[in-house]
């Protein structure tokens, strides 16, 4: 195959830069693989490694510093047939470290070439995540304080199934790059090289010294057997194909007429585990069966299994403009936590308002009419009190009728749950 190097834009790197050697080696690997430009996308990071996309006649994506792996992931998901090759420096690894971890854990079939030259070269030779502590760089003593990151070791620990640590001066580098690109999964090569423009101004580093330093590390030579597993994209597509389509929203035709004509505001005040939100939804569905417009707003703590649980419902024969509740027609007080969270509400209640209260819940003063129901004494579980309250409302023909509620239960529930709910409601409505 022909070279994929772009004759119109030859490499513009400093004389002696390892990147230039790697540019030609990468081109050699592409040629060995017989790839055409349109079968490859080069995703380049920022810095000198970010110039790579301009050197090649391939598809190109040059984005933001540290983020190259994120664009690469999107491209590979959208175009699985593309060979996605990412070039990043050690600087980008420090900036986008979490993306590196995600890429290793995810295992998409793409190749990351880390052009590791131990400093931020383009910006003036500042220390990076891989700078050895003894190096002298533009960051003063700061580079002596942090322990350098072993990118290959991190990648192995994060689950990359193919990791190689090597020198940019190895004779077989083109073959190794080819092997990494051909690996069916995420392949990372930590390629060590020399930055003559910045790093070796004050630090001695030669290809031989790189070989010696590499020899002192535990080797990383490609496949990491314990991390081998299905490739993410293929796995994703298989699982996605097994998913059921989302069902269309239920269409609820009006068949009843609501007991009261105007806008009705209801607030359910309870606590976690009382199925307050479900009861709120049932009240809205019941409203829909009478052709009402409905809104539901819920409030509960982020720790969902503890704390107040509140549902605000509006049922109206006309469009609901303002969705806030100011003077509720009905307040259902099932737990102290819910009541305490909305104490302000009670001063706005009028003589026409109705409160359904269970024993033991203390209410702030108000002018509302209070209807006490001891669900516990009737042997009803605490988790059914909210539903039972709707039955009490329906029994009084307040906001909803029994027909509306029964019909809502049939929309919402199936099987045993439906039977249990219907029988609970039946028992309370008829008494």
């Amino acid at each position, binding site marked *: 195959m022909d070279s994929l190097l772009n004759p119109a834009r030859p490499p513009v790197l400093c004389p002696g830069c390892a990147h230039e050697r790697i540019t030609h080696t990468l081109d050699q690997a592409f040629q060995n693989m017989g790839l055409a430009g349109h079968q490859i996308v080069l995703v380049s990071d920022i810095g000198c490694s970010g110039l790579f996309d301009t050197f090649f006649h391939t598809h190109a994506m040059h*984005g*933001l510093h540290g983020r190259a792996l994120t664009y690469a992931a999107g491209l590979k998901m959208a175009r699985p047939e593309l060979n996605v090759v990412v070039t990043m420096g050690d600087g980008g690894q420090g900036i986008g470290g979490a993306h590196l971890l995600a890429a290793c854990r995810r295992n998409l079939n793409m190749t990351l070439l880390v052009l590791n030259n131990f400093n931020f070269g383009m910006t003036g030779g500042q220390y990076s995540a891989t700078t050895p502590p003894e190096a002298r760089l533009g960051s003063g003593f700061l580079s002596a304080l942090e322990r350098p990151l072993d990118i290959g070791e991190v990648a192995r620990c994060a689950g990359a199934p193919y990791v190689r640590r090597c020198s940019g001066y190895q004779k077989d580098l083109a073959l190794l790059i080819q092997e990494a690109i051909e690996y069916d999964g995420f392949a990372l090569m930590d390629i060590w090289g020399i930055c003559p423009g910045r790093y070796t101004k004050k630090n001695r580093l030669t290809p031989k010294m790189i070989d010696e330093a590499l020899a002192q590390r535990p080797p990383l030579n490609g496949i990491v057997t314990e991390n081998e597993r299905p490739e993410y994209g293929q796995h994703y597509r298989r699982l996605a194909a097994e998913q059921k389509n989302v069902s269309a929203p239920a269409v609820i035709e009006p068949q009843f007429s609501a007991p009261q004509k105007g806008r009705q505001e209801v607030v359910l005040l309870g606590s976690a585990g009382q199925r307050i939100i479900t009861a709120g939804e049932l009240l809205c569905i019941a409203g829909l069966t009478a052709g009402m417009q*409905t809104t539901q707003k819920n409030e509960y703590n982020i720790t969902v299994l503890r704390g107040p649980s509140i549902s605000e419902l509006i049922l109206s024969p006309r469009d609901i403009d303002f969705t806030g509740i100011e003077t509720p027609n009905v307040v259902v007080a099932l737990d102290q936590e819910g009541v305490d969270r909305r104490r302000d509400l009670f001063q706005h209640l009028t003589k026409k308002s109705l409160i359904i209260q269970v024993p033991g819940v203390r209410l702030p003063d108000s002018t509302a009419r209070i209807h006490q129901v001891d669900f516990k004494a009737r042997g009803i579980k605490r988790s059914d009190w909210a539903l039972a309250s709707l039955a009490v409302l329906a029994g009084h023909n307040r906001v909803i009728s029994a027909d509306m509620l029964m019909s809502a239960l049939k929309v919402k529930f199936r099987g045993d749950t439906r039977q249990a709910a219907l029988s609970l409601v039946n028992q309370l409505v008829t008494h």
Partner: protein
Amino acid sequence: MTATSGPGISLYSENLSFAIGSEIPVVIVDVQRLGPSTGSATRGADGDINFLRWGNSGGLPVVVLAPVDVKDCYTLTLHAFNLAEEFRCPVFLASNKEIGMTRESIDLQQLDIPDIVERSAARADQPLLPFSVAPGKHVPDFLPIGHEILVRQTSSTHGADGYITTDSAAIARNQERLMHKLLSAVHRFSFHEHYGVEDADTLLIAYGVTARAAKAVFKMQKRQNKSISLLILKTLWPVPQKIIRQAARHVKRIVVVEMNLGQYKHEIKRILPRKSVSFYGQMDGRLITPDRIEEAVNG
């Protein structure tokens, strides 16, 4: 499409600038929560309205649509995709906790669903200049990365060929185009509702969930034979100046209501320098009630 709230938009900022400069279509839903910063996870506000417009490096325009209710969330999202495809830019949906976490009945049959806009594809029989624009157009045509024709995408300041450039004339032309492509077209997507007569004494302007309370006030005031009109803006950026000027042409005073301490009111004042513009804002995690708006309207 991606969805987040203010803290997430902060993190998106660098890639939003990338999407603007590199003309990458994106739809971003911002379900605004009370800020600043982490703020209140389940309290609403419209505090990001200026942040969405100006939270990018370079200051070039984006599209911001503001839904009022669940119905708008559905239809404006469709419009957002169409606009992102047509103008190749980020399009925001400026929602609010009070919209995103409110369930509501809707009649699917009554929705005004727009046709889907297909991408305008570049010719596939010649090398592609990825950022060249055909005569009479403001937006480059697409080809996908992975097509047989090579495609380049870059965050660097680029010429038509998608390579970094230092040609100041080419740079200036491109920046102008990125601005002009949206500002010259906003009249085609100035979503809004206007109620009442043009020569009412007072024009009430609102957007987002606050528009619902404003509508309740408008209806109440009409029942009392008060001279009022209501403009609900659903396109906030670029500013739909024509619509605002038209609605304000004959009114004596304007009342702007926002669920923040005053952001969009500056745009209204900028467009209507000779009109009396008063403002009511609230930023405490609660909805602005019709009572508060009525007080502001009654002065």
